[in-house]
């Protein structure tokens, strides 16, 4: 198939940036979206132009690097997938595709489609861990049974890949889905209880500092999240916050 691509080009963080049109031809429906981008970049390099910078690494939906806003949707039109798992069979010959970076005040553009997600790092550093030494002197792994249900639910929350699609999708650029997924993972496990109050307080405080917006319960994030992280996590985090407030 032949396609027209409208792509955000921005030389650096300080550059203003603009949309630029490109054409690609003979794209196979079996290609992944990023393989289509490879074809375009190869064309650009061969013409001596600068290829389009975009983040990617694993190309199988797990590392959370890839982050394109395609036709007005984070990770594009398919559901439950990252940009790298999107396939060209979702498009048809003659389509025009708009490709932009994930946009949010807390995710400044570095170049073209690459954004800076360090805000997520700092939120995790504020409390996204259990304070246990890695010395190996911990108790036996089976000493504390954990119900299968709790373990499974914790695992579901833990499968967030930190891509930021939830933020890019939210009209307020809220990071609640991301933060609540991490808070939930620990809140659901006995190991996470000791520091639960401090954790949620500190992570939420850091989230606010980073300039993410408020959650107004629109639920768009849940729909666009490639890993199916559920809004229940946000409700759980709010409960944890309330508990923490009572303790204080």
């Amino acid at each position, binding site marked *: 198939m032949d396609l027209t691509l409208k792509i955000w080009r921005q030389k*650096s963080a300080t550059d203003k940036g603009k949309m630029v049109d490109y054409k690609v031809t003979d794209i196979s429906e079996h*290609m992944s979206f*990023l*393989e289509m981008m*490879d074809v375009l970049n190869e064309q*650009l*390099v*061969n013409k*001596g*132009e*600068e*290829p389009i*910078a975009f983040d*990617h*690494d*694993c*190309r*199988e939906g*797990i*590392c*959370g*690097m890839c982050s394109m806003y395609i036709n007005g949707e984070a990770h594009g039109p*398919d559901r439950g*997938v990252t940009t790298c*798992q999107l*396939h060209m069979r979702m498009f048809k010959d003659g389509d025009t595709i708009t490709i932009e970076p994930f946009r949010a005040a807390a995710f400044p553009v*570095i*170049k073209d489609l690459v954004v*800076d*997600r*360090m805000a*997520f*790092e700092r939120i995790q*550093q504020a409390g*996204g*861990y*259990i*304070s*246990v*030494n*890695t*010395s*190996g002197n*911990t*108790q036996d*792994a089976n000493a504390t*049974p*954990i119900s*299968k249900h709790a*373990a*499974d639910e*914790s*695992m579901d929350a*833990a*499968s967030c*890949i*930190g891509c930021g699609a939830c933020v890019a999708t939210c009209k307020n650029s809220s990071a609640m889905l991301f933060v609540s997924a991490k808070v939930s993972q*620990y809140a659901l*496990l006995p*190991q996470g209880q000791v520091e639960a109050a401090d954790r949620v307080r500190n992570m939420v405080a850091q989230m606010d500092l980073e300039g993410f917006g408020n959650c107004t319960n629109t639920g768009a994030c849940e729909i666009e999240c490639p890993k199916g992280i559920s809004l229940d996590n946000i409700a759980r985090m709010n409960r944890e916050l309330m508990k923490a407030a009572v303790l204080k």
Partner: protein
Amino acid sequence: MALDSKIPHGPIQNKWTDYKNHINLVNPANKRHIDVIVVGTGLAGGSAAATLAELGYNVKAFAYQDSPRRAHSIAAQGGINAAKNYMGDGDSTYRLFYDTVKGGDYRSREANVYRLAEVSGAIIDQCVAQGVPFARDYGGLLDNRSFGGVLVSRTFYAKGQTGQQLLLGAYSAMNRQIARGKIEMFNRHEMLDVVKIGGKARGIIARNLITGEIERHSAHAVVIATGGYGNVYFLSTNAMGSNATAAWKIHKKGAYFANPCFTQIHPTCIPRSGDYQSKLTLMSESLRNDGRIWVPARIEDAKAIQQRKLKPTEIPEENRDYFLERRYPAFGNLVPRDVASRAAKERCDAGFGVNATGEAVYLDFASAIERYGKIQAKIHNIENPSKEKIYELGQAIVEEKYGNLFQMYEKIVDENPYKTPMMIYPATHYTMGGIWVDYNLMTTVDGLYCIGEANFSDHGANRLGASALMQGLADGYFILPYTIGDYLANEIRTGKIPTNTPEFDEAEKEVTDRINHFLNNKGTKSVDHFHKRLGKVMWDKVGMARNEKGLKEAMAEIKQIREEFWRDVKVPGSAYEMNPELEKAGRVADFLELGELFAKDALMREESCGGHFREESVEMDGEQKGEAKRNDAEYAFVAAWEYKGEPADAVLHKEQLEFKDIELKQRSYK
């Protein structure tokens, strides 16, 4: 230089404990004055950085992604081994040790492997304490599954995302130390050289991938944890950015490179679909717990399938060849990876492949779905369940176990694997070879360590499934923190290492010269063009089956591609900005040297062992006819190569392997 593996004396069960009892320690007040650089923050580097920081050292950690959480370890699916014997099926430290040495086809160092097995249990304890949500049974205890090449269930898992969860565990431990200022994290930084002063590793040169600035970083010791070099094949299951640059650069500065030809071609990957393909996707080995591998038994059926005139579900049971179950009745579908891959290739080469290119075999879940469905019907007291009901119940179980893998398959191939068998084919996956290290995980350069997939240490000529995660975390959490202390105990009086020395000047100049060469080259071909050509030579001539003629050709061809690359590569953009093409150029330049050494090593090793299969070395008769033939009399050694300029001129050093606790014998999975 003679190789000294520094294996402690004494019985194998006591070596590690005795060793720990006798090493030098650094007192906490002194640790504050010692800096350690850790390059790479996957399972190995991440766990090492966190632990070293927790002990009190000042750690500087580097990764090329924008977060430690995105290291390639994140992609590991199936699980992590540990000799916990929670299943009560006869597992023990010795058995894990034995399975690993045997699985590696007797080309690994006994003492290292024993230590790995010994600390394996603590890894699980540690991860659970960190909040890693491993799968559990209804009683709330940890669940296990089986992987290839073993007869027990010792693999712990978190759905099909075990690597992700373990890495997030190590990442959380890092975050705690970053918050305290004990780890300084350099994301989006690439190490481009190591700096040696007075024979010791004292720092690195790194490029800031956002600004393009070249930076100098000094330390009292440097740890390389940059993963494997599977991308030398262009197509592999590795992440796009996985590279050999750090390992190759330290090799050029004196670290020997061991067994480069020991590479794992994983049997169950999604077959390639076209020339545009940028990477291959693994379907976890755990699927072989329940999936049965087959091709049509009759050549006419195979032809009809290839032409899409016949569907796999239309082939009756008696006309299917479950070739692994046929050839290896004891282990069946769970033979080790090298054995399974070769068997699939053998069938496809004989014309029985099941896709248009003839390079695919089936991985079929129909029997498992039926089996689980019947059990569920019993549990739920459903009398005379219909076929559909059984299917529905069984599918739910399979979905719970492998749902994300099935979804991944369906998204890529556009076929529903619950209804029709998956198509799979072997692909490059893991590199057992790597930087040579001694028992302390130190390279042949003082103060320079190498851990995780980047080193050669524990897996011999073939790695068993779920053992890489185990090794990465063992190295980082439990082994390196001791062994490096023994070295750093002598550094307490050294003081801060300055970076304004001639050694740093020189290393930095080499790095900038190379970058300038690329940018000013004005060639005509893209970096990928050369990478793809290299990959094709590697796959065709240094792939699953190798012979003398092909290997010699490969060496010559790679050298030629390399020369052309330097002459004719085109890299757009400039040095002081984010420039992904420039990053790729540097990595491919190194692959083009490593590839040749790889072929040279394969040529030297005139035996078949593990993932290294020489067509000249097969069993000619008896029960093992057609199987790979090892040559212990002449090749029971680690090949450690010393850099001498051109890869073809590398000098071989042998570390003779001694087997005192395990009898050397033919590996049989029959």
